[in-house]
């Protein structure tokens, strides 16, 4: 598993949220968190708890009403997404469907696609890194779902940004493929030296990928800690309810459909 532990107070802080608040319709969000450089953090919680909103705030798709967001010590609150130093992988549609894989990655290196020889080499290297050598001229539609996510990871690899945000990226790939993708993601994180935040609803995925968990409910982080033993905790009723372990002390991380208290 990962070497990341919660005892990281001596390491540089990669991401910090200080009193970040946002009102979205009737639900209010409030986030305080701090993650060290190189850590991998799973973000979990029932649907509507604010997992994606948290990522959207960090990425800059949403602007907080109050509070500060610092990436590598820089307040990015007023910066557009492109200048915050991050890459992001979504569950789907990471690649523009009408552009080939190499162009999709190239757009991540130079928006005007005036690629230097070095950048072209970077694209080839990134494709090779994720096992897609020779796929550069293919259109996303001709690739399998797993291959498309690999291509998205290749773009993140080529861009070498300090922060990597993953929004349920391996959902719908099946457990075996998801495990492979997580291993690949962890390798890329190590190569790049990135800090990873990953939204997931699968405790197994979280245990494979992350060293730390943030558990959200109703727009707040109500529990967090090292992954080891986190899913065995019984002191957080929402967590037990989410995992489906509130009535019977069954094995932790048992996969059951999560209850959703919010629509």
């Amino acid at each position, binding site marked *: 598993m990962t070497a990341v532990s919660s005892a990281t107070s001596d390491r540089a802080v990669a991401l910090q949220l200080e009193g970040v608040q946002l009102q979205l319709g009737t639900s209010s969000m409030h986030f305080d968190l701090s993650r060290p450089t190189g850590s991998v953090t799973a973000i979990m919680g029932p649907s509507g708890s604010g997992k994606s909103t948290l990522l959207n705030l960090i990425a800059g798709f949403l602007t907080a009403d109050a509070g500060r967001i610092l990436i590598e010590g820089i307040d990015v609150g007023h910066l*557009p997404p492109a200048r915050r130093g991050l890459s992001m992988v979504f569950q789907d549609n990471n690649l523009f469907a009408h552009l080939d894989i190499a162009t999709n990655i190239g*757009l991540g290196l130079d*928006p005007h696609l005036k690629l230097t020889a070095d950048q072209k080499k970077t694209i080839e290297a990134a494709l090779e890194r994720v096992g897609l050598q020779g796929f550069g001229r293919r259109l996303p539609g001709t690739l399998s779902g797993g291959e498309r996510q690999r291509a998205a990871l290749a773009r993140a690899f080529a861009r070498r940004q300090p922060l990597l945000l993953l929004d349920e990226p391996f959902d719908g790939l099946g457990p075996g493929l998801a495990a492979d993708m997580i291993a690949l993601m962890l390798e890329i994180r190590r190569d790049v030296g990135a800090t990873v935040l990953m939204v997931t609803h699968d405790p197994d995925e979280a245990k494979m990928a992350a060293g730390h968990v943030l558990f959200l409910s109703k727009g707040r982080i109500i529990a967090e800690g090292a992954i080891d033993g986190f899913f065995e905790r019984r002191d957080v009723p929402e967590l037990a309810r989410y995992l489906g372990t509130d009535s019977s002390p069954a094995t932790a991380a048992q996969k059951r459909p999560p209850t959703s208290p919010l629509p």
Partner: protein
Amino acid sequence: MSSLLTRAESRAAVLGGVIAIAAISVAIAVPVTALLWRGTTGEAPDLGFDSYLLRVTRFTLLQAVLSTLLSVALAIPLARALARRPSFPGRVWLLRLFAVPLGLPPLVAALGLLTIWGRQGAVNDLLTGLTGGEPFSIYGLSGILLAHVFFNLPLTARLLLLGLERLPQEYWKNAAILGLGQWTTFRHVEWPAMLQPALAAASLVFMLCITSFTLVLVLGGGPAATTLEVAVYQALRFDFDPSRAVFLAVIQIALTIAALALLRLTGGRDDVSELMVTGQARPDVHGRAAGLVDMTVILVAALFVLSPLLATLVAGLSADLPRLLTEAALWRAGLTSLGVALCAALLSLLLALLLIRARLQMPGLGAQRTKHGLDALAGAAGSLVLMVPPIVLGAGWFLLFRGARGSILLPLILIIIINAMMALPFVMRVLEGAYRTAMSRNGQLALALGVTGLSRIRRIDLPALARPLGAAFAFAMALSLGDLGAIALFGNDRLVTLPYLLLQKMGSYRTADAAGMALILATLCIGLMMLADRSVSRQRSGTQKNPQKNKGRMP
């Protein structure tokens, strides 16, 4: 696929379809044959394919091409600005406003445009006030282009916007994270999404402009700016030159068929109703200057569409409406219009229902081949209607009955038939999808319960279709109410509809009366359109209780 109709119902559906196809074929083939027969056996036109025909044909093409280019070229920045600003106040109303020209009688629009852009219009007042120069005249090509852009720019913008809003939310997020910038986003994301709808819209607009009659009649102003349709009308009603009318009509049919082929080729579809109320969040858009540019584009477009409507309202209200409403001529014309529209809408609905029912009846009766043959025939009947524009259709009937001046009933019936044919493609589009859904939902249940025949039509099929039927009916009525083409050919002292009366008032410079009548006509048509829109949207929200989780959709 199992049959969703009983054997007897299938047979009835096929019979109905055959009757509808036969009726449509007669309504179209007879006048077209009359035209062709007249063209080949009548006295040879002494002019042949002379310079006049050439000029009219060239102008018809020129104005249609220019109108199309202008509409699409202007719609691209407009749709882009609207997509980039997904939630400014009034966006919903603006998109609704953009649907208004679709149902506005062309004559009313022409009058409204003249009030704003005409010699005594607001724009001219402003310009001459500023520069002290001579007022410009919009009659001719510029007026025709202006009117065509007024009608087609909003339509095209909605189609392009739909193309943009179909893109997944992640695209905009990716554009934001990768820092693509405005130009790259346009080139690699927005333009590819708009290209297909732009082609489809262009062929649709071309089709509409090549068959546009009223706008050219009112705004063309003279022989230099005349299209084939207007020339056909003038040849028949003023010059009494049937052979020239025949030549013009045949050229018009050829042009329309070419335009129709173009439309099929580009996969033309105009499902503007799918448009979301709020657009997608656009995290890739930032910067105050860009916002200013977008909002300026939107504001100018809004003013352009709104000003003629407002002018119609203001001028109409300042007319002597109470006196106008006591005029017997107005009431007679109004009742005639309503009667014609009612009959035309009913006829159109009946034909559409028969066609659709025959088309959608599942295999079960006879061989698969019969079904496919019927399906193709029903589809062809729909295209046939588009191939022959109302004026040409009217010209054929006009020649056949020598102007149909003798009686009042015959021209009335002809107008109703022409208006019904005109509305048929639209009615088919509204009803076909709804019918398909209703059949797949209720078909097997009705069979299982043994509810068949007329009682099934009455108790199950019609109630399930009530809303789309209402919408199609209202739309067909609005179209017929606003039509000037058929009545322009067949109208006379005793047979007058609202648009015809309006044209007469305009012709005799009764400006205030014309303004008042334009307001009445516009209110009727827009009211009907809103009714149609409402019943469609209510049905949609009622049947689709399946709200997708729109992750990226932010308030």
